């Protein structure tokens, strides 16, 4: 049914908005470029699926379990970031993504290559729903929650510490920021939220396959963040909406989805590396001028205040 399809698209968009916002905390705020976010997405999805499928636990337990477990694992998988930076970190996170997917594929407990099927639909107070408006609300409530977490982090000392780590680790240490600790915080928060998104994904689709979480999917999420405007609260949302909704709604684009993703990334880096509505972007500066918002692009202002707005 037509509107059913639109609702499904909106559900997917909501899940990917959550993924993009959560990655933004790690990459945009704390500066840890990660090409392994899909792994956390998958860990959350598989955790909640197993909790509900093999242990019969109710949805809320699965959901919280996915968040907590993924957050804890995220702290461990974030350890390489303490030793390496930049390019090396990119490689390490790629590798982590690969190993995690390999575990899903080859370890029977996770269903192996056949994946997991018949994941129960969430039910609250006896009412069971797998799609439609209720699920849409659920997904977007969590997306909103993720946004609130991002906003909150950007306003508190944690957020400021994250930015210092991103800009200059040594200078951050010189003002008393324990760089390792804050990197782990960033991984914990970002992966926990991604895990929640994974749970929502798994219970919506009803089945999970390892290849959904391969490295390329990490690239997709990263491109949403970069495309929209890395480090801002608004950028990842727009990036996720455009890059997720467009292929779903436009047949032609669907076939060439990755070609367009790739081309967009390249074009973005050539012309607007700060993202479509990033702080210094053409669009954002035009918008703020047009509406006389207090936003200050460029060298006269900016900083965390802008980034957090």
């Amino acid at each position, binding site marked *: 049914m037509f509107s059913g399809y639109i609702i499904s698209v909106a559900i997917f968009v909501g899940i990917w908005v959550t993924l993009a916002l959560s990655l933004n905390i790690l990459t945009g705020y704390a500066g840890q470029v990660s090409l392994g976010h899909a792994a956390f997405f998958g860990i959350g999805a598989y955790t909640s699926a197993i909790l509900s499928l093999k242990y019969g636990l109710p949805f809320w337990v699965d959901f919280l379990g996915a968040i907590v477990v993924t957050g804890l694992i995220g702290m461990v998988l974030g350890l390489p970031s303490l030793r390496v930076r930049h*390019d090396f970190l990119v490689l390490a996170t790629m590798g982590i993504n690969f190993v995690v997917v390999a575990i899903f594929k080859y370890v029977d407990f996770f269903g192996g290559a056949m994946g997991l099927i018949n994941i129960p639909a969430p039910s609250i107070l006896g009412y069971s729903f797998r799609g439609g408006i209720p699920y849409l609300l659920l997904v977007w409530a969590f997306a909103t929650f993720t946004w609130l977490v991002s906003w909150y982090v950007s306003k508190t000392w944690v957020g400021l510490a994250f930015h210092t780590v991103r800009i200059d680790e040594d200078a951050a240490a010189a003002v008393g920021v324990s760089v390792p600790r804050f990197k782990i915080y960033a991984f914990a928060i970002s992966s926990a939220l991604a895990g929640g998104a994974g749970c929502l994904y798994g219970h919506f689709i009803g089945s999970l396959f390892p290849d959904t979480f391969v490295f390329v999917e990490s690239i997709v999420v990263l491109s949403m963040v970069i495309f929209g405007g890395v480090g801002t609260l608004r950028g990842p949302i727009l990036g996720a909406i455009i890059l997720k909704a467009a292929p779903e709604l436009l047949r032609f684009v669907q076939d060439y989805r990755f070609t367009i993703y790739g081309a967009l990334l390249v074009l973005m880096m050539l012309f607007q590396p700060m993202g479509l509505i990033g702080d210094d972007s053409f669009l954002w500066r035009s918008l703020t001028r047009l509406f006389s918002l207090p936003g200050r692009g460029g060298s006269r202002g900016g900083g965390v205040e802008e980034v957090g707005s």
Partner: protein
Amino acid sequence: MPFMQNLSNAVVLAGTYILMAAGLTMVYGVLKVLHIAHAAVYTIGAFIGLLVFTWAGNFWLALAVAMLVSGIVGVLIYRGTYHYMLDAPRTVPLIASIGMFVMLTDLLQKDFLMGPYQKALPAGGAGLPRIQTSWFSLTPKQVLILVVTAALLAVVYLIMTRTRIGLGWQAAAMDRDMAAAVGVNLNRVIAFNFFLGSALAGAAGVLVGVYNNSVFATMGDLPSYKAFIIIVLGGMGSLPGTIIASLLLALVENLMVASVGYVLPRDAIAFLVLILMLMFRPHGLLGQE
């Protein structure tokens, strides 16, 4: 399987790794960019090699043309993207590289190019003989890989050490700004670098395509991941390190598969090695920082 045979198999495997990784490390040496799009050049090389071989029936011609085209594609990638990002923060060329990789790989899968299925590249051993000694034996295809790899490496070595452009590269790898200050034409050095590195990758693609008698659009993914592992192991930007690391990785993979019934696939082992390396010896076995 007896050790010497294992060893010789590993050397052959390493040959393809070296060609792939050498290009990558050369690019990193000067640009300090993880050239993730390198995978696409490898695949393009295999594809062109297939086309030429199908049309002309001659392996050596196919190899030469593939290398040439790959080299040109490499330079075009550089001129179209990285060239404008030399002074940008490191994430910018990295993301652009990822974008190029995704775009090219997707395009290659379209029907008008390589299509979604694999194709055969039946060039056999290109007329080379089988080698049989008491310790190990090499099939003609294996001999082919060894011969081509050795020849190309020798050429690269000569270029790097005996020509002006090679020396310019070494200078630029040490310090880009200084090199420019003493008159090294950075643009030319980098472009040539890309040409050479990409040509090597193209050669690797053709060789692997011939060896496995199979060419397909995503064939570059795994070799390029491994190439990254190798350049980290060998020290980013170090050619000798790359050669040693390639041999090591090939050896470990062969031994793992041969002796241990694997829980995880062989490729995942490579990644575990990567993560461990990054944790404990991020500057590689031979690299300096």
